[in-house]
């Protein structure tokens, strides 16, 4: 029996002796093997509007069957799901939901996709992998909502079964990732490029946290990296911070900061920039990058108008990137 094994799922590369768990709390060395403790045991199961992920360019106004297990391989100070992400599975109330049941329940609920979300699907990798394969057989899309902190090999293995992903690009400096999330930035940037190259539709979320990553320079550098490395057609969602978890001392992000971020992103040439949690902002809706016509009008998660027809602007026929139908 090996004395030490190394998990190779994420860049933490936890080295574990018998009985030890990884940093994520859900992978353990037992009987000389690395074992997952969250296969078939989600602790959160909901049907959400797909816009909540947020995904604005994938099957608008459809439901997505959303699951999550306990655990996470990051430890973000602002985490809004910390009650499950910073917990071991024996500390959460779990369901028994094998992959085939996830798929059948998703179909029964009328959902067009399954989202692996809330905590981080990277830590329930095996469960995601098996479920995603079955979902494809039933013509359901698979969606990852993730921080993207994963090694290349496991990402390449699961990529064929992931259709779309919302990825947190939390900041654009190593220092921010270290101080805020106890992680590193470089693997996330690499994972984003791999996802795009492998054909996964990606939308990015940046949570703007007052005094941490809300400077003009931070936002400008982040947008520049996206424009240079992923291109102007990757949607970017600026999300408003609300006091949570270990950052209850901070105020919510002022709407004018989000407006500033939106302006910077548009000036950097990004075509699809959104602002979350600020009702009535222009950044709630989708506009054609060619003729600036309103394509999808949103209030919250509700769509009031949709002028995208066959994946194109109804007015000028410009192709609008996304997954508009299965």
């Amino acid at each position, binding site marked *: 029996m*090996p*004395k*030490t*094994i*190394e*998990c*190779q*799922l994420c860049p933490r590369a936890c*080295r574990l*002796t*018998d*009985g030890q768990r990884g940093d994520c709390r859900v*992978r*353990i060395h*037992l009987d*000389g*093997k*690395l*074992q*997952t*403790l*969250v*296969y078939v*045991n989600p602790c959160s199961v909901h049907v959400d509007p797909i816009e909540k992920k947020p995904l604005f360019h994938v099957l608008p106004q459809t439901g997505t069957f959303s699951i999550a297990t306990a655990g996470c391989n990051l430890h973000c100070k602002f985490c809004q799901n910390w009650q499950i992400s910073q917990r071991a*599975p*024996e500390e959460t109330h*779990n369901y*028994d939901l094998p992959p085939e049941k996830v798929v059948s329940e998703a179909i029964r609920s009328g959902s067009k996709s399954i989202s692996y979300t809330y905590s981080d699907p990277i830590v329930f*990798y*095996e469960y995601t*992998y098996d479920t995603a394969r079955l979902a494809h057989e039933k013509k359901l899309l698979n969606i990852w909502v993730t921080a993207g902190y994963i*090694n290349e*090999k*496991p990402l390449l*293995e699961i990529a064929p079964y992931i259709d779309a992903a919302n990825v947190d690009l939390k900041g654009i400096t190593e220092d921010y990732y270290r101080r805020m999330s106890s992680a590193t930035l470089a693997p996330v940037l690499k994972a984003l490029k791999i996802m795009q190259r492998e054909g996964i539709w990606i939308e990015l979320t940046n949570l703007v946290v007052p005094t941490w990553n809300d400077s003009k320079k931070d936002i400008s550098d982040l947008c520049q990296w996206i424009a240079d490395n992923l291109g102007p057609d990757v949607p970017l969602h600026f999300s408003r911070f609300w006091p949570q978890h270990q950052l209850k001392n901070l105020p919510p992000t002022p709407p004018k900061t989000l407006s500033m971020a939106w302006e910077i992103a548009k000036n950097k040439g990004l075509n699809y920039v959104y602002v979350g949690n600020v009702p009535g902002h222009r950044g709630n809706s989708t506009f054609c990058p060619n003729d600036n016509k309103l394509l999808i009008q949103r209030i919250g998660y509700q769509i009031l108008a949709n002028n995208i027809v066959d994946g194109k602007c109804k007015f000028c026929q410009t192709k609008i990137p996304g997954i508009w139908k299965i």
Partner: protein
Amino acid sequence: MNNKSFILLLIVATLMVFGVIAENARSTASPTKAEVSVDTTGIRNTLKNAGITPREAKHWKEL
């Protein structure tokens, strides 16, 4: 305590310290071959009581 007693105490203490150093050096030079093992019974019971069944994971290696 008079000076003689103090000196005697100091010598005894010094001998004890050197004795410990010598024993540590000896055990480092010829370590025990006994295998360190961890009793994972408690861990398994905790998982079982929580209704959790471990399953082999992907993407790992032996060191």
